Structures are given as C-alpha cells and as structure tokens.
C-alpha cells in the first residue's frame, strides 16, 4: 500500500489514527505501541503477505541477538548478528547477481530460480545492523520487545527510510507529551505530508513518463537532446520521488507526534559532491559513514587509505541500492567524485566562509552535472543502455532535429524543466518552510535563507500553498485511481 494510494489515504491511515487515538485514550501507551506494531505489519503484508513472515523472523532473531549482546557485550555475538543480517540480504538480494556473474565463467551454469526480493529488505536490515552495533557499543540499553518491534516496523519509515537509530525514536514513544495525536501535530504533519504527496503524485510520477520514454528505448541511440532530456527528467523524477517520500514519511510520523531524522535537504543546491552526500539520503550517508567508512579506518590512516575507504564505501553503497553492476558503477563513480573533491580541497586550501557567489554557482553547476551523468548508470536497464545514453549526451549520436521532432522524447519536457530546475536550485525545502513547527530531528535552517523571499514570507503563503497542493494531489490520485508509480527507493 503506497502512501499515495487511495486505500492508504482514505482507508488505512484514517483508521489507524482513530484506533491509536482510542487506544491511547482508553488503553494507554503500551496498548497504542502494540497496536502500531500490528498495523505496521499489516501495512507491510499488503504487498505480499507471505513475505511478512521474513520480516517477523528478521525482527525476532535480531531482537534475540540484541538482548544477548546487551547482556554479554560479546564481539562474537555481534559478528554473528551482522552475519545473519548480511546472509539474509545476501541471499534475497544478491544471490541472483552472484549466480549470473559466475555463470559468465566458462563451464559454470548456476540457476537459482526466481528469488522474490522482499520489500525494503535493505532498509530494515541496515537499521537492525546499526542497532546491534549500538547495543554492543552501549549506546542502547533498552531491550523492551514492543519497543524493538516498533523501532523496526513503524510504518511511516518502514519501506524506504529514513534509517533511524533506536535512541532517536523509542524515547519519543515513551515521552507522553510527544507521542500524542493533537491538532498541532495533525496540522504540522498534514502540511508536510501534503507537500510530499504533491511532489510524488504530480511531479515525480508526471515527469516519469519523459524519462521512461528515453531510458526504455536507450538502445535506439538517443540524440543529444533526447539523451540529456532523459537524464535530466530522471534527475527530477528521483529527486521529487525521494523528496516526496521523505516528506510523507516525516509528515505521517509527525501526525503521531514523532519526529524522524532529516533525510533530504535540497541536494541539488549542493556546491560540491561532499555537500551533495550530506543532503541526499542523509540517513543512509550517516549509516555508511558510521558503520562502514569509519570502521574501515576513515581518514585516520593517511590519504591513500582514506581515498580507498571512500571508494569502497561508495561501491558498497551503490550495491546497497540494487543487485546490478550498473549500481556498483554508479557508487564507484560517486566514490571517485568524492575523492576528486577531497583532493581539490587539499590542493586549493581553505576557502573564505562563506564562499563567493561565483564559486558557489560554479560548484553547484559542476556538482549537478556530475550527479546527472551518474544517474544514467543508476537508471539504465543495462550497461549497454547506459553507454548508449552517455554516447547520446556527448553528441556521438548526433544533434537531432532542432524542431523537436524526436522519436524518443516529447520536447515539452524542456518546458517542464524550465519550471522544475529553478525549484530545486532556489526554492526552500519542506523542512525549511515548516521550520516553525520543528519538523525533523537535527534540522537547522540555512542562514542564507534570510535572503530568500519565499522563506521570509512563508507564514503568509505556505499553508495556503500546501492546501492547494493537497487538493491538486488528491484530484490526481482520484483520477488515476491509485495507479501511482512505486516509490523508486522502496525496491532497494
């Protein structure tokens, strides 16, 4: 059940709100939390009921490991727990890729049949690995079973994050003044959710038709306008898809009074790749930094080791997104970009703060360009398709007719880009617009926003704008009768 679907919007969510409010009022917090676990499992089971068993097994085993590690603080138990999680994700997500790759060797033929990829396995597995490490390091002492179940399954963040830490969420459920369905929370969460819903069903799903039309036929050698159009369209699609999802998750949680960590903060405004990864899928970046890059040695063992660690981290980050070598290449490309970025900072030396407008614009343009090129490998169905797209982007497939009579792309896309690019480059993001309502954990508005008229006057128009977005988004949802695209990140 997608957040943007009719059953969720008009059935599941209102029913859950009413049930939780009633249970909180008449049964107490413990009953409410248990109820939330049950409805979250129901929410997950909606796609493919048998797969919920896997989620339950994963939760039970990890809980048992967590309790044991908490009591014994044994490193071998932690290793076993991590191994269990990696084994689970390895089998369901990567066994096919491994078999396919090995089968390319002469004389080797491995057929594993069809392995169903459980929804969001990467998210709940990584979240639980982080939990085991936190327990081992003594950061988490709470071993309450209901708390643990809810920490993993809380439906607003179950299918595509944010990847949360136990200590970020569970104390909020225990805090009476926070875990509370109030008009304030409903209004704040509802506004954020409305903006997210609009981003998803109107912008991301709308622009998807343009990117699909090029990427689905990438082997037909798109011309330079088609290839760039396809890449930019996908850049916009994934931006608004993930940004919309993150807003919806944050808004839904907030309606229960829960604040999730910030996950997305205008990444296309980044003036460097380092900044980009500080603002794109922030909770994944945090996970990769804390549980992979730093344990590998981080930047503590010299430059060469630091760059190697960066590349390894990003290669695995790419693999986390999907079982395909194009994802690995995408991760490697970003690792290389990060390495170049760090090298450049070292060569250039310290810069005045804040950086000059010219250097920020140049940095932003270069970063945007690099990110768009990398998205081609992320989106392409195959290596050959990605190469064909890159050939098109550098003009090797010709310029194409200047009158816009292209076979793979409706030239109307470029009009939409004229609207959307200024939005992603200049407009304040949802957290910033809703900052008076304390929307997420750890968010501090950019001081530069004081110069942004949209932000300074937000009190005058944000509520009206969000209501208009909600009406428009609901109309689109009803017209499409739930035929919304899946969230891009939910299959990771």
């Amino acid at each position, binding site marked *: 059940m997608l957040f943007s679907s009719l059953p969720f919007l008009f059935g599941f969510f209102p029913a859950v709100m009413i049930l939780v409010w009633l249970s909180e009022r008449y049964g107490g917090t413990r009953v409410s939390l248990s109820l939330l676990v049950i409805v979250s499992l129901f929410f997950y089971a909606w796609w493919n009921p048998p797969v919920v068993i896997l989620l339950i097994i994963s939760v039970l085993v990890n809980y048992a490991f967590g309790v044991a590690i908490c009591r014994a603080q044994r490193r071998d138990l932690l290793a076993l727990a991590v191994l269990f999680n990696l084994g689970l994700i390895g089998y369901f997500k990567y066994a096919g890729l491994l078999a396919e790759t090995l089968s390319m060797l002469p004389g080797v033929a491995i057929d594993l049949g069809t392995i169903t990829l459980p929804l969001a396995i990467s998210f709940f597995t990584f979240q639980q690995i982080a939990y085991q490490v936190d327990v081992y390091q003594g950061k988490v002492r709470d071993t309450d079973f209901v708390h643990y179940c809810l920490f993993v399954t809380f439906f607003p963040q179950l299918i595509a994050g944010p990847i949360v830490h136990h200590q970020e969420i569970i104390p909020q459920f225990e805090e009476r003044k926070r875990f509370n369905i109030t008009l304030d929370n409903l209004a704040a969460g509802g506004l954020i959710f409305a903006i997210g819903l609009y981003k998803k069903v109107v912008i991301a799903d709308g622009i998807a038709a343009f990117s699909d039309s090029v990427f689905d036929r990438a082997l037909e050698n798109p011309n330079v306008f088609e290839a760039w159009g396809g890449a930019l369209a996908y850049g916009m699609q994934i931006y608004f898809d993930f940004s919309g999802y993150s807003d919806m998750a944050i808004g839904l949680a907030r309606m229960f009074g829960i604040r999730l960590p910030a996950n997305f903060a205008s990444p296309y405004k980044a003036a460097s790749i380092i900044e980009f990864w500080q603002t794109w899928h922030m909770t994944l970046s945090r996970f990769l930094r804390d549980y992979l890059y730093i344990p590998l040695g981080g930047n503590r063992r010299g430059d060469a080791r630091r760059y190697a660690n960066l590349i390894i981290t990003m290669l695995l980050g790419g693999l986390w997104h999907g079982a395909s070598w194009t994802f690995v290449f995408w991760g490697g490309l970003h690792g290389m970009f990060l390495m170049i970025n760090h090298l450049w900072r070292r060569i250039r030396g310290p810069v005045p703060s804040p950086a000059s407008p010219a250097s920020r614009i140049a940095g932003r343009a270069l970063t945007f360009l690099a990110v768009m090129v990398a998205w081609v490998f992320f989106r392409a169905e195959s290596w050959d398709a990605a190469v064909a797209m890159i050939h098109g982007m550098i003009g090797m497939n010709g310029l194409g007719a200047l009158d816009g009579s292209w076979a793979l792309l409706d030239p109307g896309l470029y009009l939409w880009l004229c*609207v959307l690019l200024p939005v992603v480059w200049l407009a304040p993001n949802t957290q910033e617009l809703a900052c008076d309502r304390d929307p997420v954990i750890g968010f501090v508005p950019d001081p530069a926003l004081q110069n942004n008229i949209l932000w300074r006057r937000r009190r005058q128009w944000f509520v009206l704008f969000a209501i208009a977005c909600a009406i428009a988004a609901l*109309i*689109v949802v009803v017209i499409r009768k739930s035929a919304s695209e899946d969230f891009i990140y939910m299959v990771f």
Partner: protein
Amino acid sequence: MVGVFALTLFAVLEFSVRLAVPEYNPSTHLEFSWHTDGLVLGQPGTTKRQIKNTGDFNVEVRFNRLGLRDSQDIANADDHDFIIVGDSFIFGWGVEEQERVSEQLESRIGRRVFNVAVPGDLDTYDKLIAYAMRKAAGRPRVILAVSMETDVAGYQMPAPSRTTAGAGPAAGNKGLGLRDVKGFLTEHSAVYFLLTQQIHQTPWLRDGAVRLGLIRPNLQRDQGRLAPGEAVSATAARTIDIARRYDATVVLLASRYIWFGDKTEALSDIHDAVAERIRNAGVDVLDLKPVFEADGRPLEYHFKNDGHWQPAGHAAAAAALARHLKDRYGDAL
C-alpha cells in the same frame, strides 16, 4: 485572501493536471494545423491524443511525414493498392489506427490500403485524392467514402478544430457568450477538461448541468438536418464527378439520425435518393445503410455520446467493403 487562494489553487491545479495527466492538456490534443496543397492536415511527425470528455474514447493519433494518419507512406503505393478517402469516420475518429476500416480492410483483402482521410467535405476529398496521387509511386485505386450526415446535408464543416470537443458532426452550441468562454477554456485549460469530464461522467452532475442549460447531450443536439433538394443533387453530382475521374468505389456512410431522432424517415429517404442517383450514373456504390441495419441494432456501431463509429462499426464496414471489392475486381484484386 479568498481571491489569492482561488488563484493559487487554480494555478497549482492547472500546473498539476498538465504535468500529472498530460492527456488532459489541450496542447496535446488532436489538431489540424499544417497547411499544404490547399489542405489542412496534421503537423507532420507529431503524435497527439484524441480524448472525449464523456469517456467514449482516448486514443493516440500519429501523423506521418505527409500530415496523414497512416503508418504507411503513400509514396510506396502502386497500381494494385487502394487509397481510401473520407471524413472523420474514415480518419478513425475515436479509434486506434489499427482498428480503422482501412487497416481492417487491408488484412481482409491482402492489398495495401492507404488512408488519406481528414475531416472535410467533398472538395477536401478531391484535393486529398490529388495530393495522394502526386505522392504515390503508381496510380492506386480509389475508395471514396461519402458521409450522408455531413456531406449530403450541405453542412459546412467548421474550420478544423484544435480539440476533439468541438470537431466532427457533433459540434455546435448556442449561446454566444457561454460558447466563447467554453471554447477558450476547452482550448487552453486542462482543469476545464477535467471538470467537464467529471460532469459528463457523473450522472447526477450531468443531469444537473443539462437542467441548467450548461450542456446538452451530444446525441440530442440536432436530431439530423434535412438537406434541401438542391443539396442532394449537388452532392450526388459532385460525388459522381470525383468517382468517374478516378474510377472510384463510392461508399455511402449512413447518418445515425436515420435510426435516431424525429426525422428518421425523411433522412432515410434522402439517403436512398442519393444512393440511387449515384448508382444510376454507373458509379460503383457500396451502401452501408443495409449493412448496419442487418442485425437490427445500427446505433450500437456508434459511440454512446459521439456519432462516430466504434471499432465494431469499422469492422462491419471493412467486412462489407472487402466483399464488395472482391466482387468488383475478382481476380484482379
């Protein structure tokens, strides 16, 4: 404040509907805007949508390099092939290209059939045939489809419309001011299309709008028009002239008002009179009226809220035309 909100809401809605449901965007709708050889055809190489707000159809229309709706190129047509010319019925108004009479006929007779139809009148057909003959490699055989609802009634086709809403035989609306506003919104607003769609497809809203005089159900508009005697004679003479020049097979498309409304008998008599005149002139004629009446449910070949043929109508016409051409040409087919 209310005004600001209303404007914001309308702007957000217009933007949203255009991006999220591009088929509602009027600029993506079917239009004939390319002027060539005295004709107004589709913009070459473009793909448009033809969508009816009543929900009767939502189809894709691709124009080839010559501005015609045909995936085949008439430049390849030789003496053994056929071209079929006519108005919106033969153009395939509201049906996919492969569902049209021309494509179904082609599969039945094993000969290529090139569709050169666009909404128009007999003068348009004459120009279309000449246009096709100039482009063709050989001299293909001609099938001329005459619509009794528009061509014979002396109905002047309006200037080709940008959208489906105002085109074809169902066009027309009284009340100048309202019509102007509706026309503007139809051509420029996706939200207006969405709104009219919801009204047309929601019975109680549609009934209310009909009672208020805002809309009239399409099939109750004109109830058919009675052509004067001169129009009948002129139409028949013009048809005979074109048919003789190209040794064409004339296909007579019956008006649906022969079977619906308050002028059924008079219109049926006009139909028969035209058919007889053309036949008596020695022109090869296929009359589709008895074909559509054969099973006693002729209106079921048409859309519910639009006078054009559904795919079943195209299939019935193609079957009858295939039989007729086999009879006419025999082994030479």
